[in-house]
Structure formats: structure tokens, C-alpha cells
């Protein structure tokens, strides 16, 4: 970086900078000052001594990575969140394309609203609902039993639990993605379809040759932007639905940190995990932003 291209000109731009001040100050007070607290990740924290606790360097991290529980939570997190990410794109895109093919505007709007509603419910409520319908005597198992397929312990079986998380999360959230993709579809010039029709394209060929390619930039953008949160597998959801029986496959970084830090009062280790996660996320955000720029021409500035 050699020299600034634009001269900073406070005399003409000061109004803009003035508008920026409150935001910067608040961010500084509430986000940057507390950052000082991360030093406890490098200390053997002791409530009595506070931030002046003895310095241990990277000891906490060493301890963490030697814990098989912790490495296990990383894999669990990745497994759940990558699947959520993948299905979180495939499902909304498919539904959006299907909805877009619908002739009746009224029905289209109805479905749109219907699938968006779960998005507004918190996981606390959703967890209650899920526990009920997924229980051994719940709606789903009753149906499965009637169909002669036996019952499934959705929340208690370690093999099934991650999938319960993935599917229920996609189910709760796909309405939002669908709306984003529907909006992108609205932006496609209808005369392209008419043109394709006259060129001899069937419905399916229109979807394949026009809809999907023109949706691609949005798909890439959404994918890349969500890469930044790949270490967030959904604390609210998992915490409200898991149990020690499924820790083996269902314990994710966030729930682990929570138990460690808050419940077992191992503040230092908890802070270390949090710091590790933030670091990975920061790297992911930066990389994904670069990728978004490269693949989809997306830029914030």
C-alpha cells in the first residue's frame, strides 16, 4: 500500500464522520474494552484476584487440545454445521424454484408465509414442540409405528441426534432462505423465459439453463457468507435439546464452553475455547469475504 489515493478531507466530510462517532464509541465501549478480558485465557483465573491472576501463557490451550472431549466437540460442530449449511442452501433453492413455477399467486404467497413462520419462533419454544412430537409416543413415532417402521429415539440416540438437529434447523430456517431466493428469482427478466420458450425449451430446460445459472451468484454469495459461522452449530438449539446420552455426537463447542465456563466455573479454559473459536471464525469471515468478492462480485465497500 503506497500512499492514500483519496485525501482525507475533514472540512467537507466532517458531517459523515460526526454521524459515525456514536457507533464507534458504543462499539468501543461494549466490544473492544471487554476484549481485555481475553487475557484470562492466558491466566489461571481466580475470582479473588481477577485480571491479576497468575500468567500461564498457552497452558490453557495445551490443556484443551489434550482433552479428547474438546476435539470431539470440534468434529461434532463441523459435522452438524456443514450439513446445516449444505441443506440450508439446497432446500431453499429447490423450494424457491418450485414456488416460482406456481401459477397461482395466492397459493404462492400462502406457502411463502407458511414456511416462514417457524423462523419467528425461538428455539426454546421449538424445543418444546420438538420434544413433544419426537418423543416415543409423539406424532412422528406414532406414524412410523403405524407404518411398521418401528420407533426412533430422535433425541436420545447418539447416531440420530445430529440429524435431528440438522433437519429441524433446516426446517425452521428454510423459509427465510426461500424468500431470499424468491426475491432473486423475481429479478430475472421474464422475457428470458419467453425467449427460451420460443427457442424450444421445456420447463425443466428453462430451470436448468436460465433459473439456476442466474441464481448462482446469489447461491454463491449466501454460501460464502455463511462460511464465517461454520463453527456455530446452533447453541440455542442443541442446548435445549441435548442430554448427556448424546454428548458423544451432539456436544458442540458452544455447549462445551458453556458447561465448562459457566457451570464448572473453569473460566480460563472457557475463555480459551471462546478465543480459539473467534479466531477461526475471524479467519473464515475474511476468507469467505474474499471468496464472495471473487466468485460473486460481492463487496461491502
Amino acid at each position: 500500500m503506497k500512499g492514500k489515493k483519496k485525501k482525507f478531507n475533514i472540512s467537507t466530510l466532517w458531517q459523515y464522520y460526526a454521524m459515525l462517532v456514536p457507533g464507534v464509541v458504543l462499539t468501543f465501549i461494549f466490544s473492544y474494552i471487554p476484549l481485555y478480558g481475553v487475557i484470562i485465557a492466558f491466566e489461571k483465573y481466580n475470582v479473588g484476584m481477577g485480571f491479576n491472576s497468575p500468567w500461564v501463557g498457552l497452558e490453557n490451550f495445551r490443556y484443551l487440545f489434550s482433552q479428547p472431549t474438546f476435539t470431539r466437540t470440534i468434529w461434532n460442530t463441523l459435522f452438524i454445521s456443514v450439513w446445516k449449511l449444505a441443506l440450508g442452501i439446497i432446500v431453499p433453492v429447490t423450494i424457491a424454484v418450485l414456488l416460482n413455477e406456481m401459477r397461482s399467486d395466492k397459493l404462492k404467497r400462502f406457502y411463502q408465509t407458511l414456511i416462514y413462520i417457524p423462523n419467528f419462533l425461538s428455539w426454546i419454544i421449538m424445543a418444546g414442540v420438538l420434544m413433544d412430537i419426537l418423543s416415543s409416543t409423539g406424532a412422528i413415532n406414532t406414524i412410523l409405528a403405524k407404518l411398521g417402521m418401528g420407533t426412533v429415539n430422535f433425541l436420545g440416540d447418539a447416531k440420530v441426534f445430529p440429524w435431528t438437529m440438522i433437519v429441524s434447523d433446516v426446517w425452521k430456517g428454510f423459509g427465510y432462505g426461500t424468500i431470499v431466493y424468491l426475491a432473486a428469482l423475481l429479478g430475472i427478466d421474464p422475457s428470458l423465459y419467453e425467449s427460451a420458450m420460443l427457442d424450444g425449451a421445456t420447463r425443466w430446460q428453462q430451470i436448468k439453463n436460465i433459473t439456476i445459472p442466474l441464481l448462482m451468484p446469489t447461491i454463491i454469495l449466501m454460501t460464502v457468507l455463511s462460511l464465517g459461522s461454520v463453527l456455530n452449530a446452533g447453541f440455542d438449539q442443541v442446548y435445549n435439546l441435548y442430554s448427556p446420552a448424546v454428548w458423544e455426537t451432539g456436544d458442540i463447542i458452544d455447549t462445551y464452553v458453556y458447561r465448562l465456563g459457566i457451570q464448572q466455573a473453569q473460566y480460563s479454559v472457557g475463555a480459551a475455547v471462546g478465543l480459539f473459536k473467534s479466531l477461526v471464525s475471524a479467519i473464515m469471515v475474511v476468507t469467505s469475504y474474499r471468496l464472495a468478492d471473487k466468485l460473486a462480485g460481492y463487496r461491502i465497500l
Partner: protein
Amino acid sequence: MASLTLKNIKKIYPFSSDEQKKAKKKKDDEPEKKQVNLQITDEGVVAVQEFSLDIADKEFIVLVGPSGCGKSTTLRMIAGLEDISGGELYIGDKLVNDVAPKDRDIAMVFQNYALYPHMTVYENLAFALKLRRIPKDEIDIKVREAATVLDIMQYLDRKPKALSGGQRQRVAIGRYIVREPQVMLMDEPLSNLDAKLRNQMRAEIIKLRNTIDTTFIYVTHDQTEAMTLGDRIVIMKDGFIQQIGTPQVVFNHPYNIFVATFIGTPQMNLFENAELLKNNGRYSVKLGDYTVELSEDKQAALSAKNVAAQPVTLGVRPEHISLSAGGIDAKVDVTEMMGSSVHLHVDAFGQDVILIVSTLNMTQKELDSLNHGTDVRFDFPGNVCHLFSKETGINLEA
């Protein structure tokens, strides 16, 4: 390459929502002057009706008319993009009312070109052929052939975004050349181009027409395009055909006042206070104190219909009026210097009359004298008078 027959074609756009219906009710209650006098019925908006036209193989038909008169609707019905509400549409001798667009073998150039933005020019040209599962090398030959004709060879690898308006236009046309469709439809293909490019592309379309020998239906609201391109012109208004004829016919024998004023620039002058006289079987027209005997062909036409003497609306084109020693008194209002001619706006009988005066035989002094307030006189011969019925607005000769 096929003939086309439209029989009493009709298009009704059904109301899409209750609101429109309510709006219609309101309109029924308090009739007010609407800009577009489309018929609004209980079923919906009638965009096109009583549209009957026989189009010969390889003919170039131009649909022309003011905005909202149903040109695009007609074109889209032919293409199959809109359902036909009534009447019959034949391509060749096959009834195609219910044939899907992709099976009609029709190509259409859209106003915004509708190029596939994610495909290169080459892919755009090849798309229709690819869907037809034509072998790759054959596609390649056809694409390159069309690209050569349209002079877009060097752009084959570009995306449409990287092309100028004129180049996009060529690609849009090229997409259909490769297909060799039976009928080629164009919906205002030149309206997005600037004046110069438009003239150039117009010439190219004329050239193209000679190379690709197919039936053309061309929509425009530009009457110059209509006059220069069409074998026959269909003039529409409010969903009805006003006149069908060669450029010559619609210019010289406009069927009604609408056609008379729509075709020709500047617009034809209309005099409401004229009178058709009949003396000893000879017709003449009287405007103020000026009387002129009609030409023989007009005499014949009027006699054949045994038209009675009556007050008429007289139409005379600006290029047919000349300054004269005698004739009608007028005062110069505005002069528009056009180079080889002057458009003279004069005031006569309290109305604006335009006449075109050639500057060829005028001295600068004479020109300079034609400024605001100058008294002039003008007249016109008997062969350029268009007489329209006061009641119906229809040409009395028709």
C-alpha cells in the same frame, strides 16, 4: 417461411384482482375521459378485437399504432406467449391456437433483446440449436455463418453485458437467423437505440430481409420505420385495426382521420370548417373564401358513392400546401428551419396550420421576411384534399 392467417382474433386480459374490478365499477358510475379507450367489460380489458389479417408467405407486415393499442399483445398471441381469447390463428394452414410456443417455430426479437446474460454471444446464438440436439459441428457452422452476416464474429466470446446496444441488437437477431424460423416477430427492436443507430439498423433489417427470406411481423410505434420497412402496414388504435395497406395507400388514401394524422410528419392539417360542394355533378371543396375543384380521381370516387354536398373535415398534408399570391389569408407564427425546407406554422381561421416550404428557390431575403406576424397566403391543389365525414371521421372516398 409460411403464410399466416388471423381470423377475428380477440384478446381479453382478465382482471387479475378484485381491486381492478372495483376500479372498473367506479369508472362505470362516473364516466370520465380516459386516455386509452380500451373496452373494459365484465370479463376484463379487451386489448385486441376483430383482428383479421392474411399475411402472405415472406411478406413484411408492420403493426403500428400509439402506445397501448394492442400491438405487442397481437404479436405475443401469434408467438403463443398469450392465450388467444377468441378467433383463429393459422400458420400455413394449421390452426395453432392451442399449440405451445415452442412448437410453433416462431422467433421473436424482444424490445429489450432478452439475451441470456450468463451465456456468451456464441452460446446465445447456439442455445436454440442445442435444445434441438443438432450436432455440435453443425451448430458451429450455423453460428459462424449468422455471426458473419451480422458482423459480430469478433464478439462471439463476450457476454451480452460487454456489448453496445447495436451489437446486442445484432445478437438478438442472430439468435433467430440460426434457427430459420417460419415466422419472425419483432417487437419494437430499435426503440432502445439512438436516432443514428436506429437508422443504420433499419437499413440492416431491410438488408437482412433480403438475405433470410422469411415472413416478418414487425411492431413499432414509429411511423417512419413502418413506412420504410413494411410491405403492408397495419394501423391500430384501441385494439381495433384502422387500416391495412401498403405504405403508399395508407399515406395517400387514409381510411379515417386517425390514420391520416398518424401517418406523416409533420402531421396532416385538419380543417373543421370546410365544406364539400356539388355543382352539376362536379365536386369542389370550400375553405373560407378559397374554393378548389377536386381532381378527377376524387371526382370519380365521390360520384361512384354518390356523396352528397355536406360540411366536412378537410385534411391537407403540410408538404402539399404552398405559399401563393391568392388563397387563404394567414399570419406567420413560428418558422422552423429544417435545412432544405422550412416548416412554417401559420395561423388561419384561428388554428395552427403547418406548411412545408422548400428553401430551394428562395432568397435569403424572402426567408428572412417569414418571421412572426408576417401576412402570408397559401393554397393547395384539388388532388391533395382528404375529405372526412363529420359524423364518422371516415374518408368520404372510402
